[in-house]
């Protein structure tokens, strides 16, 4: 019992020392607190939801009274400026690429006639959705202009007419918005803080020679290692909460799922990331190597293969398969479900189990590495 108490206080002495290492190093503090906050704010400010004077191009093959009225109404609204008439629908792509046009309106042939005779006419709205929030707003404003006209017609003629707007979001068909970046960003930040910083912290002791002194002392090596993980675990959780708060109050991301499960899910992923850092630290000898290994081996794949930047569904099958072994991929998909879709936890059970399995596997391998290296 006394022995156990002694061990505990020893352990906390180590944890405290580790916090000293972190808080007394300006660079470490910058990386673990500065980077997450800056990243989330950058994304926050990169989103603009203000929509005004969007340049509109029109392809109007029927060129009748109805279409002209719709076009005029659109031009009259403060949101849109009709600046261009297209000669064919194919020109749409071209005007988008010139970068000024945000919306292309394509009327069907004989629009007015069809509207009066069949009560049904088609209009296509092509929207540049490379900025998804902007795209959504444009789409809803254009939709309301058309709906307004439809209302007017109904009052004038008393004939029920229906204009069917077909909306196509170009360049970003999934409408991946800044919201969707939040889970990916979390995944990347945990890799940075947990995996990179822990591996560097452990390897630093090897480099500086203090690890040698600890190994010669009666303290169990596993204690040393775990005491290094604890502060990063706590700090990561704090960062997670900071990101969450910033997302809600700065980005306006609605968190629709259970907060408790979201936290549990994030903690599981933090453990995976920590164990990856541990694994790296058992393999490399220098801090530079640790940074390279975690940068190239962990952070790059998170950016490219986790679904953070590129949607997994549109990857070639081989890359989809590779992305399956990247923990962040499962975290991103689970976190998206919990944060954005707000599904009950049973829908992320698969992701949770995969991450847990990965954690167990990686920890087992690293512990074995630690053991063999010491003997």
């Amino acid at each position, binding site marked *: 019992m006394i022995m156990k108490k002694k061990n505990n206080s020893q352990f906390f*002495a180590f944890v405290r020392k580790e916090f*000293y*290492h972190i808080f007394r190093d300006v660079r470490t503090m910058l990386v673990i607190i500065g980077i997450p906050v800056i990243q989330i704010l950058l994304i926050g400010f990169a989103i603009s939801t203000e929509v005004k004077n969007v340049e509109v191009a029109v392809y109007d093959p029927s060129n009748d009274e109805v279409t002209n009225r719709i076009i005029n109404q659109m031009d009259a609204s403060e949101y849109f400026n009709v600046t261009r008439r297209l000669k064919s629908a194919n020109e749409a792509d071209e005007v988008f690429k010139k970068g000024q046009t945000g919306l292309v309106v394509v009327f069907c042939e004989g629009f007015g006639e069809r509207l009066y005779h069949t009560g049904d006419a088609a209009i296509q709205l092509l929207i540049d959705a490379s900025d998804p929030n902007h795209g959504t707003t444009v789409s809803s404003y254009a939709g309301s202009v058309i709906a307004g006209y439809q209302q007017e017609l109904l009052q004038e003629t008393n004939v029920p007419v229906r204009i069917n707007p077909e909306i196509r979001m170009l360049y970003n068909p999934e409408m991946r918005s800044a919201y969707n970046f939040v889970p990916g960003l979390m995944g990347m930040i945990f890799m940075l803080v947990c995996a990179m910083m822990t591996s560097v912290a452990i390897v630093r002791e090897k480099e*500086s*020679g203090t690890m040698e*002194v*600890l190994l*010669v002392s009666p303290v169990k090596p596993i204690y040393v290692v775990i005491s290094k993980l604890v502060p990063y675990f706590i700090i990561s959780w704090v960062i997670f909460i900071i990101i969450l708060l910033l997302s809600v109050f700065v980005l306006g991301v609605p968190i629709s799922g259970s907060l408790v499960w979201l936290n549990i899910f994030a903690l599981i992923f933090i453990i995976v990331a920590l164990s990856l850092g541990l694994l790296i630290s058992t393999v490399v000898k220098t801090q530079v190597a640790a940074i390279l290994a975690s940068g190239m081996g962990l952070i790059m794949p998170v950016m490219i293969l986790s679904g953070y930047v590129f949607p997994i569904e549109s990857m070639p099958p081989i890359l989809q398969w590779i992305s399956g072994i990247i923990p962040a991929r499962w975290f991103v998909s689970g976190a998206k479900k919990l944060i954005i879709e707000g599904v009950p936890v049973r829908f992320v059970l698969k992701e949770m189990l995969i991450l847990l399995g990965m954690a167990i596997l990686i920890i087992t391998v690293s512990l074995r590495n630690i053991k063999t290296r010491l*003997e």
Partner: protein
Amino acid sequence: MIIKIDNLTKCFGDFTAVDHITFSVGKGEIFGFLGANGAGKTTAMRMFCGLSKPTSGEGRVAGYDIAKQPEMVKKNIGYMSQKFSLYEDLKVWENIRLFAGIYGLDGKQISRKTDITLKRIGLMNEKNTLVKELPLGWKQKLAFSVAIFHEPKIVFLDEPTGGVDPIARRQFWEMIYEAAEKGITVFVTTHYMDEAEYCNRVSIMVDGRIKVLDTPGRLKDRFHAKNMDEVFRQLAR
């Protein structure tokens, strides 16, 4: 005998790093463990400290079997390496408390002894200084004090004075003598042959074996040498 090594051998595959070494060291002795780089000193030291298991042979350090009771060995020894081995970003007293805590000293004992130790080595004013702000000579003195803070029976010093100026080295050896007078056995490796002269006895390792072991005086007589440097050159050539 505080260290008793009998036919201790360590092989890595076909390579025999330490080849049947046998010797013993008495209490309070200052024992110089010399050898060229690659002679097997470090491997041997690691075995004495309970860090690596011998391939064959036996050894007892501080009364405990180095192969079977490495934990007990570790508790009863102190260690200081050629690399400076305290935490640079911890304060002087934080380093002392951390390492003393590892060896199981309780808080009260630690704070009492910290002041005594710091006064003795003249670092009382630096108690709250981050270790990285101290000059190297002071750091080495501090590291040595930390290594013997828990009053081990033996302290292993692996090239403790590397890179330190002559005056600081001199002071360092005074600390070693003080420790030896208190009954702590000092087991030291060094590349400075003038330091070898300060030892009670020295052994010189060549290719994994202990080639000679005697007092510096007798070794000089035997090899008709003016100083230990000549003895070393004749053997480790």
